[in-house]
């Protein structure tokens, strides 16, 4: 008897411990199911103008810039940091890209220039955090505020528009029928995964994030690791800037990537990352991005008056986060049980 009970308890514990990705996936599935109820053709996918077409494709497509930023953010958060400046980095790198396109340079140089802008921003943040020891929130707040001003200066106070075959291909084009930008996400995911799991970089970032002092005493160059993490998120934001700027063929210093830092942080948290540093979850972070984007797309499709956009989004996110919190789940289960008990008696 007691043996059986023990086994049951063990199985339950295992079940609870096993898939960290379960709750985000459930949330995503629920949102998609509601979408089908709202719009029966939600899952239909066709090829239009040589590109996949449909709401599901839209979610992936619109989710690209936040996905790029969130993957970088996952690494910085893993190092017990945070980067509030990613939205401004999007604007700055977009401005650099527009300026270089107007300078009639070759796409390769423009790509390097744009990524270089992101890297410089990242290293600036990293220096403030790792070398000068400024708290990450404050350190990156500096660039968050000043970055858009810099972008505005590069743009000359206007919203420059441009045409560029290469960058329109990267942002809005497609390879066979699949949008090019999805390949970009897959490529960045692959590169970051290799970096994190096939070199020791991931172990080092997680060690620094989990316990900086112990990591240092184990011989890890904690400053270099932190610096690199910020450099990576900077480049991720620059790539997102490239996609966003190429999408509208214009560099909007004031609005490009606005609020993207919040979405990225949220995606990391939805994916199970802890703001106290430690484990980096790239895969579930991407699921987090999809939840947020599916939600945004659903709200746009639903015909809800725009006044309610933010409120609905906040409520759904709150529910998902509560579902993820073990304390909340236990409380709900307990409530359910007592309810049942009462019903029986």
């Amino acid at each position: 008897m007691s043996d059986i009970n023990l086994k049951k308890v063990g199985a339950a514990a295992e079940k609870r411990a096993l898939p960290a990705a379960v709750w985000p996936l459930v949330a995503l599935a629920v949102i998609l199911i509601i979408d089908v109820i709202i719009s029966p053709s939600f899952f239909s996918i066709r090829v239009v103008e040589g590109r996949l077409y449909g709401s599901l494709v839209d979610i992936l497509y619109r989710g690209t810039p936040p996905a790029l930023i969130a993957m970088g953010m996952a690494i910085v958060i893993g190092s017990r940091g945070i980067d509030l400046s990613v939205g401004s980095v999007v604007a700055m790198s977009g401005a650099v890209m527009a300026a270089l396109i107007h300078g009639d340079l070759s796409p390769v140089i423009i790509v390097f220039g744009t990524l270089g802008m992101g890297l410089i921003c990242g290293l600036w943040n990293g220096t403030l955090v790792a070398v000068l020891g400024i708290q990450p929130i404050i350190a990156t707040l500096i660039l968050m505020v000043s970055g858009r001003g810099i972008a505005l200066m590069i743009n000359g106070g206007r919203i420059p528009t441009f045409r560029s075959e290469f960058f329109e291909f990267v942002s809005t084009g497609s390879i066979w029928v699949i949008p090019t930008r999805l390949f970009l996400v897959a490529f960045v995911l692959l590169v970051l995964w290799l970096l994190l799991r096939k070199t020791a970089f991931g172990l080092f970032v997680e060690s620094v994030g989990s316990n900086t002092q112990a990591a240092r005493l184990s011989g890890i160059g904690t400053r270099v690791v932190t610096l690199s993490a910020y450099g990576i998120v900077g480049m991720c934001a620059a790539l997102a800037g490239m996609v966003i700027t190429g999408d509208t063929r214009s560099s909007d210093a004031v609005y490009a990537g606005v609020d993207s830092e919040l979405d990225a942080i949220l995606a990391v948290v939805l994916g199970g990352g802890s703001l106290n540093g430690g484990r980096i979850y790239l895969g579930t972070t991407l699921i987090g991005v999809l939840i947020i984007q599916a939600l945004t797309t659903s709200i746009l499709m639903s015909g809800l008056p725009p006044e309610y956009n933010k409120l609905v989004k906040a409520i759904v996110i709150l529910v998902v986060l509560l579902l993820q919190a073990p304390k909340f789940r236990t409380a709900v289960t307990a409530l359910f049980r007592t309810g049942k008990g009462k019903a029986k008696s």
Partner: protein
Amino acid sequence: MNKSHLLGAVTFGLGLLAAAGSASALTLGFSQVGSEGDWRPAFSADMKAEAKKRGIDLKFSDAQGKEENQLKAVRSFIAQGVDAIIIAPVVTTGWDAVLKEAKEAKIPVFLADRDVESDKDLYVTRISADFNLEGRLAGAWLAAAAKGKCNVVELQGTVGSAPAIERKKGFEAVIKEFPDIKIVKSQSGDFTTAGGKEVTESFIKATDGFKDVCAVYAHNDNMQLGAIQAMKEAGLKPGKDYLMVSVDGVPDMFKAIKAGDANASVELRSDIGKDIYNVVEAYLKGKHDFPKWVKIASDLHTADDVDAVMAKRGIK
């Protein structure tokens, strides 16, 4: 030199130099908000150019978006004893004290563009465009172009902002006269190209490829430009199969109209210097019966006059 005037003297040093040249002419102070976006620098430039044309000595001050800069500038105008002061306010509140000072100094004050919340007796009049009128113009054009029958999708501006509210109200006021014109989808694209594009993409899906949709009305041109991109990427033909009307009249929109991707844009004119100076000069010559809001007429441009407009504005 009095210390309290030092700052004003530095800021307006150039203006004073100019004033020495034409001492007998009209002297006006103009406190501008700043130089954000495309529209405002163009507005500033027009004010300066028009002043030069009329031989007005314009003391121009850029408040860089800060209320305190603006208050300093206005006080320095008062100290210099200009003939009239024009203010494009940064914020709507906190004006009572400085406006009273101007009144005591018997210097008339005119508001340009935005409104202020203060005693209506403290300024002569507000001279600006009318967002509601812009919405009505767009609605009227659409009603005529669609011959009174159309399903419209609307791209709203930032939720709660004055232009978004008034352009929606004005548009709805006109189309409600036509029972067969309806707004079938309406969402906010936050006045940005990216926002307009994303919202339009979802509208296209939600209406099964814009089935039964005949027009897109956007609260500004930037969102409409995004809508045009989204529609083209979905294989639709904006400007041909769908009527496209929006507000602002930015250069890229005129280019789109010329290319046949859009049909009409209500211009938020930046060359309103002459409208403002006309009112100011008339007042100073003794005409005192102005309404509290002098509305500047807006123009709607279509493919018919787009070449002329572009030539006039120097858009290539």
